[in-house]
């Protein structure tokens, strides 16, 4: 912080026409909060002062905005926005993905999604990823709380616990596919633990298979949540806790009335990521079980409708429905947890 002893508060912000001389260009980084946006008046006022410039800052600004945004926006429009509008258009046609003709069918595709239990019913399989995601957040939060308390070898624990997240997801799926084999490592482990009555066909039993798949997701992604919770815990001001302990608050009271409320926005963000991830589950069933009927998720069904049954119109409508559902679920979640997200 020592290097940043220049005036930073909004009060000291340079007034138009009277710039305050500050840190020279290229100085050490000074990360401090200041009011972010620069307005036009400032740059206009400078125009006269800086004689060495051939272009006025006003012209520069226009040129810069256009040239800096051109490529990023071109990419955004080309690869995200344009395909999205195409998607909407396709969803109202019966396009087969091949022929040059597009027949307008109105809302037929949308009606079909809700009428066909085989399509919409796949959300039942997404449910286990959803529950898995919630459990994953709870587990990660508990781990973060433990790691944040006074313990030995904290960094060693954290280092090991984070490993699953950085492994390649296809490799992880294969490792678990191996674990789940009939008489495989998991069954044998249960045997050793005297829990052989729990053995089952982990990928063959309909009642279990989606939980087996969701566990893979849990195993790979809990470290991500854990690290975020841990960072959030570490950033909570210590004096709060000191005050609480002076007041004689118990561990549970501190957790319930101080820690959790302060983590609310972080929990919300984590849940947001987990929930949209659950609704869009694709890779794990795709690689692990070839998205066979008991494991087909809404998104694998969508791809199947498009690429096996050549019904791009219907598949596009399914994509739009998925998008709407993601929006709805996230809104409900925001509403339930109350409050507004603080970050950006």
């Amino acid at each position, binding site marked *: 912080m020592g290097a940043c002893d220049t005036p930073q508060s909004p009060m000291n912000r340079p007034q138009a026409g009277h710039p305050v001389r500050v840190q020279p260009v290229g100085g050490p980084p000074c990360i401090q909060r200041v009011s972010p946006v620069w307005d036009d008046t400032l740059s206009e006022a400078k125009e006269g002062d800086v004689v060495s410039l051939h272009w006025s800052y006003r012209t520069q600004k226009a040129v810069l905005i256009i040239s800096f945004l051109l490529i990023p926006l071109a990419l955004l429009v080309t690869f995200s926005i344009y395909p999205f509008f195409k998607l909407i258009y396709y969803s109202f046609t019966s396009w087969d993905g091949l022929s040059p003709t597009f027949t307008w069918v109105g809302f037929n595709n949308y009606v079909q999604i809700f009428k066909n239990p085989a399509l919409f019913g796949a959300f039942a399989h997404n449910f286990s990823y959803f529950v898995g995601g919630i459990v994953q957040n709870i587990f990660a939060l508990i781990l973060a709380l433990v790691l944040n308390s006074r313990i030995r070898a904290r960094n060693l624990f954290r280092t090991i616990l984070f490993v699953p997240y950085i492994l390649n997801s296809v490799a992880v799926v294969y490792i678990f596919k191996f674990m789940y084999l009939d008489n495989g490592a998991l069954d044998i482990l249960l045997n050793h633990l005297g829990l052989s009555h729990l053995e089952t066909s982990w990928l063959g039993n309909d009642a279990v298979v989606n939980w087996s798949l969701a566990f893979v997701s849990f195993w790979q992604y809990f470290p991500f949540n854990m690290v975020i919770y841990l960072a959030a815990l570490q950033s909570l001001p210590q004096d709060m806790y000191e005050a609480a302990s002076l007041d004689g608050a118990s561990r549970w009271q501190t957790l319930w009335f101080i820690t959790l409320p302060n983590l609310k926005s972080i929990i919300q963000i984590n849940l947001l990521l987990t929930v949209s991830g659950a609704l869009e589950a694709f890779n794990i069933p795709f690689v692990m079980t070839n998205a066979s009927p008991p494991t087909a998720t809404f998104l694998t069904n969508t791809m199947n409708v498009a690429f096996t049954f050549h019904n791009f119109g219907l598949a596009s409508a399914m994509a739009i429905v998925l998008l709407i559902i993601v929006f709805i679920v996230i809104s409900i979640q925001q509403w339930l947890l109350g409050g507004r997200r603080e*970050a950006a």
Partner: protein
Amino acid sequence: MKRAWHDTVWDVVKYVFLVFSVLCVLFPLYIAVANSLKSDQDYINLGILQFPSHPAWSNYVTAWTGGALGNAFFNTFTIIVLAVIGNVLLGTMVAYVLGRFEFPLKRLVLGAYVFVMFIPTITTQVATFGIVKNLGLFDTRWSMVLLYLGASAVQIFIYLQFIRQIPVSLDEAAMLEGASYFRIYRSVILPLLTPASVTVAILQTIAIYNDLYSPYLYMPSVNLGVVSTALLRFQGPYSAQWNLILAASIIIAIPAVLLYLFLQRYIFAGIVNGAVRE
């Protein structure tokens, strides 16, 4: 006295929980390593939990050559380097413009980035595919680079958050010395955004390393395999030979683990920044 007893129980519970979690993480990895090192003979004769007394390193050679993993690493690495350079340049450019200037349509630009974040990208591939094809990039590494190049909403927000913390006074000082806006971007903003760029680079590297569907769709040629697709293809003909599949999986895991051990601090910071600033 009572309190100390309480604390001891609490400590025991904590460590038991931690050790249990660590075992949950390590057990599948141990199983994978142990079985990847078993010769065909050992694989049949030894129990699944046993570690072979004579590790069959030849499995790793077979996996490396049979899966064309060297080539896959090269492709993955090339794509990551090019895409990340592009992400950093384009992301900082967008953030500079959005973070430092007021102009009409600014909110629209920002809103567009937020909006596309919610589109499940897999589903728009049909339309995207046509574009990649028309650009003549299908089945080239450039298709991947270009798809990853566009800065995502998450990246933009990370940069915006950081750029707001760079004092505007720095820009102004530079202006006093006659620096152009571009010069300010290059000499003030870009260097000061380095921590954000590290975050962006880490998040994007993890994303690209893990992506399966896009390379599968856009680079079907065998010689254009990336780690995910190479592993997927390797699995087909070898799916009865678990020792080889696990060896290939471990090979693909190793560089990521090594990088992680060396760059741990940055990775944690990167992930936290990425999520919290979203």
